[in-house]
């Protein structure tokens, strides 16, 4: 392309952004291309599309809500490198969420778009686990949460690579590569904090103790997860607990931290009052998060710019 053509294309910055109506890519709302454009999204045989959609929302909402919590750290992390790292992790999770929410709208036949799910659902329709919605707390608390979440999610996505739903399998195969780096980042930080100063050690221990009551819910299977596991599409999360325990033990040992007492997590193990995220029962923390995440989209419905 010659120099003059290049100027024609980009000399007018506003024109360069606005010229292609298919790609109003700087808007928050409508205007993003469908992340599954051109992907065959038919539902595999003998699979209930409604179940599959609900399952995609579980996995997608976990990623979306934790992505938002991580974004809250940006510009507040201890060092610039951590701002960048956390923003990248949040971006990976947001990308996984976009694919999964888009897949949900194709699976149940409603053709709802990712933005409809992200911006227009009330808290009672979100299917994420409580772990991801809790307030950030201090840096050690957030990193303890990230360690627990990424260890759980890596084990889950790794199993999901062989899902009979080729779309889920592809999303999972991609996610495994990303979450491997997330788990690595969180584990190395827990090591530095736990095996650091008395103050950092105490904060790391407090962070693990604060998130530990949410661990039970991760591995308590929902009936939809069980049905889809039987159909070869989903994963029964209770089968992931051994791998999770081994990885967490490895990190805690290297970080000179103790595993929080099991009694701390028994409150959520099988307790449907506390462990109801998959059915839309949430803490107040999610309401506050959604007010911020959805505020602009709800104030200006259908906005594009």
């Amino acid at each position, binding site marked *: 392309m010659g120099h003059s053509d290049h100027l024609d294309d980009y000399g007018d910055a506003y024109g360069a952004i606005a010229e*292609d109506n298919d790609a109003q890519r700087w808007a928050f709302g409508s205007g993003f291309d469908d992340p599954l*454009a051109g992907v065959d999204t038919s539902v595999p045989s003998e699979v209930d599309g409604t179940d599959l959609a609900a399952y995609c929302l579980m996995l997608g909402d976990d990623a979306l809500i934790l992505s938002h919590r991580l974004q809250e750290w940006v510009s507040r992390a201890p060092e610039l490198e951590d701002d960048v*790292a956390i923003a990248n992790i949040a971006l*990976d999770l947001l990308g996984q969420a976009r694919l999964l929410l888009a897949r949900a709208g194709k699976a149940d036949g409603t053709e709802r778009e990712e933005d409809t799910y992200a911006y227009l659902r009330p808290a009672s329709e979100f299917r994420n686990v409580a772990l991801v919605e809790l307030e950030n707390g201090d840096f050690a608390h957030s990193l303890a949460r990230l360690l627990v979440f990424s260890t759980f999610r890596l084990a889950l996505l790794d199993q999901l690579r062989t899902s009979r739903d080729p779309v889920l*399998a592809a999303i999972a195969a*991609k996610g495994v590569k990303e979450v491997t780096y997330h788990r*690595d980042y969180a584990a190395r930080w827990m090591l530095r904090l736990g095996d650091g100063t008395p103050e950092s050690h105490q904060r790391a221990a407090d962070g693990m103790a604060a998130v530990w009551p949410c661990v039970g819910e991760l591995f308590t299977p929902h009936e939809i997860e069980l049905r889809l596991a039987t159909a070869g599409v989903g994963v029964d999360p209770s089968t992931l607990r051994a*791998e999770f325990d081994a990885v967490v033990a490895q990190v805690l040992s290297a970080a000179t931290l103790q595993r929080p007492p099991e009694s701390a997590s028994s409150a959520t193990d099988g307790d449907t009052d506390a462990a109801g995220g998959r059915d839309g029962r949430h803490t107040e923390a999610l309401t506050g998060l959604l007010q911020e995440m959805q505020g602009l989209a709800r104030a200006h419905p259908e906005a594009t710019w």
Partner: protein
Amino acid sequence: MTSVRGGLPDVREIAETVTDPELPMLSLADLGVLRDVWVTHAGTVVVSITPTYSGCPAMDAMRADLKRALRDAGYEDVEVRTVLEPAWTTDWISSAGRAKLAEAGISPPHSAPIRAAGPIQLDLGATVRVLRCPQCGSARTEEQSRFSSTACKSLWRCRSCLEPFEHIKEI
């Protein structure tokens, strides 16, 4: 299926001129993101691309740039499709692409890690790998962070020339 239409330039050649919005020294073909280009019997140009990372924010820009390039070459009917499987790997970056990265001061990736059977191992040991500084060639370099200005890069520092540099991390 064919890649040419009477009097118009080859669609693959056109698509291969489109560069990555965040690594503009690389074409989408160099990066391994451009998977296929063909023309249907109805005359639609179909381009398939795959994201590097799930959250790659450049995908929308890539689609728009591909459409613009093909329209400028006379192809009005262009469809850009996403391919998710198989997942992108840094092994798909061409040797020409690696040379262009190095020339631009970005350390190109080594081979992607080969996955052992069983659960993915967590390695808490110190990073022992050696990267050469793309500015001065010194092997006295150290990793600053596994994450950098884009999802696909890590941040390094050269202890000889003291310059920071980025490395495309292997996935």
